[in-house]
């Protein structure tokens, strides 16, 4: 990077230009992949609705019952208020984690091959998919907000709070869809992927603060919950989404942990993605 030559400045600035144009390229490639995915989603949005059924059931059935029995200590919040951010996080997780199936499908055709022969950054190909998974989750969040409002959950609807929730959903989706992509690259077949997908989702969900606070967990589970990225997503959502909700770890830590996790996952996925066609 640093040049020992007197004209080092010239080459450093050339370096900076090529870095800048590299970023523009990266953004354009990421957008291209996300755009193609979103067009497909808009053309056939049924998936968004069918996938919204499960979180609605959690709110309607589990949420309402547990609100009555007061089995879980949630402080000043009602249980339904407490769990709504958790259910949203769950819906983000479940949507994103099966996203690798689509990648295996594209690989069984030749779509992935062709993308990998293009000069596009491998990380942009990965991130583009992750972004589109995020937008899917946002569409589901809209449905969930409507149901939660109908059930009397005290949602915060001020624009900054909603914007924060959107950002959190995008970040969380990106994490779990990239995780899913990594699994897809390793297992390579749909059958094996489905098995692993099932095995992953439940522990991620139950070993988090989504539907009960970490305080009530046994010690070993507390440890797991603290390294589970879903916990930090729920923590952000709980602080931003409902009246009276607050973050246990602080938003800075939440976002930092998630951004770091995403960076690591994208780096790993960018290396693994090319191996899916070998």
């Amino acid at each position, binding site marked *: 990077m640093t040049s020992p030559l007197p004209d080092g400045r010239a080459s450093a600035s050339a370096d900076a230009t090529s870095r800048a144009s590299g970023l523009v390229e990266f953004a354009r490639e990421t957008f291209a*992949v996300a*755009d*193609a995915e979103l067009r497909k989603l808009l*053309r056939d949005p049924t998936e968004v609705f069918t996938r919204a059924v499960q979180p609605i059931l959690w709110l309607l059935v589990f949420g309402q019952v547990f609100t009555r029995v007061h089995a879980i200590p949630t402080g000043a919040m009602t249980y339904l208020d407490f769990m709504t951010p958790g259910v949203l996080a769950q819906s983000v997780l479940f949507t994103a984690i099966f996203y690798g199936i689509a990648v295996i499908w594209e690989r069984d055709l030749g779509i992935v091959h062709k993308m990998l*022969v293009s000069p596009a950054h491998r990380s942009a190909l990965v991130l583009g998919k992750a972004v589109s998974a995020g937008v899917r989750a946002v569409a589901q969040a809209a449905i969930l907000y409507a149901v939660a409002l109908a059930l009397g959950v005290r949602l915060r609807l001020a624009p900054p709070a909603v914007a924060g929730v959107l950002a959190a959903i995008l970040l969380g989706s990106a994490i779990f869809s990239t995780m899913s992509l990594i699994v897809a690259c390793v297992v390579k077949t749909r059958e094996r992927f489905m098995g692993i997908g099932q095995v992953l989702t439940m522990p991620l969900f139950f070993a988090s603060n989504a539907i009960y606070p970490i305080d009530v967990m046994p010690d070993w589970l507390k440890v797991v919950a603290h390294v589970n990225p879903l916990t930090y997503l729920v923590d952000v959502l709980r602080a931003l989404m409902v009246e009276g909700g607050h973050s246990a770890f602080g938003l800075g830590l939440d976002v930092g942990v998630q951004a770091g996790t995403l960076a690591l996952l994208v780096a790993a996925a960018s290396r693994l993605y090319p191996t899916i066609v070998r």
Partner: protein
Amino acid sequence: MEAGARTAVATSGLTRRFDGHVAVDGLDLEVERGAFFGLIGSNGAGKTTLLKMLTTLLPPTSGSARVAGFDVVREPREVRRRIGYVPQLISADGGLTGRENLQLFARLYGVERSDREPRIGRALDFMGLADVGDTLVRTYSGGMIRRLEIAQALLHRPAMVLLDEPTVGLDPVARSSVWDRLKELRARFGTTVLLTTHEMEEVDSLCDRIAILHRGRLVATGSPAELKASLGERGTMNDVFVRYTGGRIDERGAYRDVAAARRTSERLR
């Protein structure tokens, strides 16, 4: 850098092993710029593996390959910028329109924004898809999908296109429409074309140079005319193929290759 610019492809001792099985075995291959080059071999002869190495999808186990003047392992991005690839499997997205498929690849190849629409329009024209550009690819016929895939591979004006069994599973009419486009491509733009095939008719009507692969090794190279002449006056491409490979067409066909080929032809129907 462009020292090897005269040659589109030059490999030296190129080898790829898959746990114990040698798919491509010490290949020394040269393809001249502007050639219409056919790689011939039965299923499992190593054609697809070779193409994957040349397109930077698969790293060689040993040996080296330069494509469009660049090393496939050390300078993969330079290689990628200069080639277009049409895989054996379907590579157009059925959930998008023809135009959207082209837009995606124009962006991935870094075609400037102002250039994108005109190029996409010309590509659709050239491939005879102008009136179905805004229709979902899912509704296309097999020949139309193939032509779209070729259009996708040409948007960045590559010096060379590599096609893996481009006409497998196509009916005769669709097949000749693909052939015509490839011929015209070379005639008008001087693009080097490298394709794999196991159809001798394709070789006869398209290729000016061929290489026969058998069990991962190069067993013959030359022009179709030369190779036929070497067998006497009435030699056919089929005779040539039998002569160099022992004629067992389906020998050692990898299950995966066969399954993939069938799936493709199924979906193209």
